[in-house]
């Protein structure tokens, strides 16, 4: 059964307030190599085997899962 793994994050041009707080927190904990943190969403969507999973996931992201005004997304589809 195809499984899609979808990653949604704010567009790079937008300030990610959560990411900035985590970046500061990590530095304070001594992780001085941290150059940036972006916080996003991770979704798993199980699909029926028939049909084009990429086309379906693309449509889902466009219509509901991501807001193209502020977010970008990527996904991978695997059989599992």
């Amino acid at each position, binding site marked *: 059964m195809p499984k899609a793994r979808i990653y949604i994050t704010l567009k790079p041009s937008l300030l990610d*307030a*959560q990411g900035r707080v985590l970046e500061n927190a990590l530095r304070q904990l001594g992780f001085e190599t941290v150059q940036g943190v972006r916080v996003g969403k991770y979704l798993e969507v199980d699909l029926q085997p028939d049909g084009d999973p990429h086309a379906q996931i693309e449509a889902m992201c466009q219509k509901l899962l991501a807001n193209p*005004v*502020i977010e970008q997304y990527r996904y991978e589809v695997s059989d599992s």
Partner: protein
Amino acid sequence: MRAGVIVFPGSNCDRDAYFALRDVLGYAVDFLWHDAACDLGDYGLVVVPGGFSYGDYLRPGAIARFARVMDSLRAYAARGGRVLGVCNGFQILCEAGLLPGALTRNIGLKFRCMPVHIRVENAATPFTRRYRQGEVLRLPIAHGDGRYVCDEATLQQLRANGQIIFRYCSPTGALDAAHNPNGSVDHIAGVANAQFNVLGMMPHPERACELLLGSEDGRRLLEVG
């Protein structure tokens, strides 16, 4: 005058809006259930209220925009019907594409619940014609996702067309970072569509319609006709 207030699962300012429209302004008011299509032709105003529709799952307004009543609202707005989205209602109207831009997490990550001041930036709209240009209003906010954002081209368009209706400001009307409660671009607190019949704003006019409640600055915004 007849007004409608949409009710989603998780709306929590629907009764505030109902009270303000019925008891303060004396309108006939109907609650409009999210899961029913209906003809909104008789309404002089439809309010999309604040709250946490569908639990804010995924993003505020992301699920609500697909509710059946939204098709009716879209048709009503396309015919020039007056739509006011407050707080979560603003988020829903942006998600639905009835207003440009989007609302994202407050810059300080805090849920801000407090009175703020906003400046009337365009008093020539059906919503704001009872205010003076530049008038400073005191209204409450209560939101965690109120940072208005849009791309640069959209921002230029909003400015050029006068679609920025309210900006956060100091009590004397100055624009500065200290009085921008959520980090909104260009201090934006409310925007209208290009036809000025759809307005979205984060502050709550319906909670500021009587002096007993601290301010009646919001009352004129809800007056129709």
